[in-house]
C-alpha cells in the first residue's frame, strides 16, 4: 500500500507532467521513464510477470541510491495511480499530444499531404 505522502507526490508529478512542465527521459530499460529533480530522481517502469502486468515507482537520492520503491500488480489498489503515472510519463516522453496536434494541423491545411515513395529497383521509364 502506497503511503499518503507518496500518493500525493505521484499526483503532483502527474499534474506537473500534464501541465507540460516536467521533462521525462528514458532509462536503459525498454519501458522505464525517469524524471530528474533538483535533489534526486524518480522512475516508473512496467513489465509483465507470470502473465500479470506490473508497474513500479522508484525514488532516488542525489547520489543515485534507490531510497524507496513501490510495485503494484494489475488488480492491486495502487495499480491505477501507478499506471496513470506511467502513461502520463510515456505520453510526455513520446510527445503524444504534440504529435497528434501537429497531425491535425497538417490535415486541416489545404496543401496535400504524403509523399510518393519510389522503390530503388523500379526500372527507369526510358
Amino acid at each position: 500500500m502506497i503511503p499518503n505522502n507518496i500518493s500525493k507526490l505521484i499526483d503532483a508529478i502527474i499534474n506537473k507532467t500534464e501541465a507540460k512542465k516536467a521533462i521525462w527521459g528514458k532509462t536503459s530499460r525498454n519501458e522505464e521513464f525517469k524524471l530528474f529533480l533538483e535533489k534526486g530522481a524518480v522512475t516508473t517502469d512496467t513489465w509483465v510477470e507470470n502473465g500479470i502486468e506490473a508497474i513500479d515507482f522508484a525514488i532516488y537520492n542525489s547520489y543515485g541510491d534507490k531510497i524507496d520503491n513501490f510495485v503494484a500488480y494489475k488488480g492491486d489498489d495502487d495499480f491505477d495511480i501507478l499506471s496513470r503515472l506511467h502513461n502520463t510519463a510515456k505520453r510526455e516522453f513520446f510527445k503524444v499530444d504534440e504529435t497528434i496536434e501537429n497531425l491535425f494541423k497538417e490535415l486541416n491545411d489545404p496543401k496535400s499531404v504524403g509523399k510518393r515513395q519510389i522503390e530503388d529497383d523500379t526500372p527507369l521509364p526510358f
Partner: protein
Amino acid sequence: MKKTISISIIGVVGIILCIYFFEDSDKTLPNYATVIGTICSIVGLSIAYINILALKEESIIISKQIHLTLEKVNQLNSLSEISKAIKVNQEIQEFLRNEKIELARLRTLDLKYMLLHFNNDLLLNELTSDEEYKKLILDFGIDLNSLNETLINSKRKVDFTKVVKNLEELSTYLTKFELKLKSIKI
C-alpha cells in the same frame, strides 16, 4: 642571528656607558653588579623575544609547506583514483558487452564507491557540482539498480547498449576531472 649579535653589542655598550658615567661615589661592586645584571636581563629577554618571533615565522612557513605538500599528495591521489575509475568503467563496459552481468555489477559497486569519494574532493568541487555530472551520477545509480534487479528478476530486461552508452558518457566526464587536476599547479 644578526639581531642577536646587535642586541648583545648594544647591551655591552650600554653597560660600558653606564659604568663610565657613574659618579665616583657610585663606583662600587654592588652597583656594577646591579647595572650589569639589569642590562644582561634586558638583553636576554630581548634575544628570547626575537627568537620566539623568528620561530613563529618559521612555524608558519613550515605549516604552509606541509599544507602544500598535503595538497600535492591529495592531488596525486585523486589523479590515481580517477585513472582507476576510468579503468574500472572500461572493465564494466567490457563485461556488459560480453553479458557477464554479475562481474559487471561487482565492478559497478567499486566504481560507485570511487564516485562518492570524488564528491568530497575539494579540488573537484567545481566539476562535481555541475548539473551534467549530477545527471550522470543519477543515471549510473538507476543503471546499477537495473543490473541488480536483472540478476534477481530476469523478466525485467535491461538494454545493455544503453548502459554502456551512459558509462561512456561518465568516462568522458571523468577524463575532464583528470584534465582539471593536471591543470592545477600546486
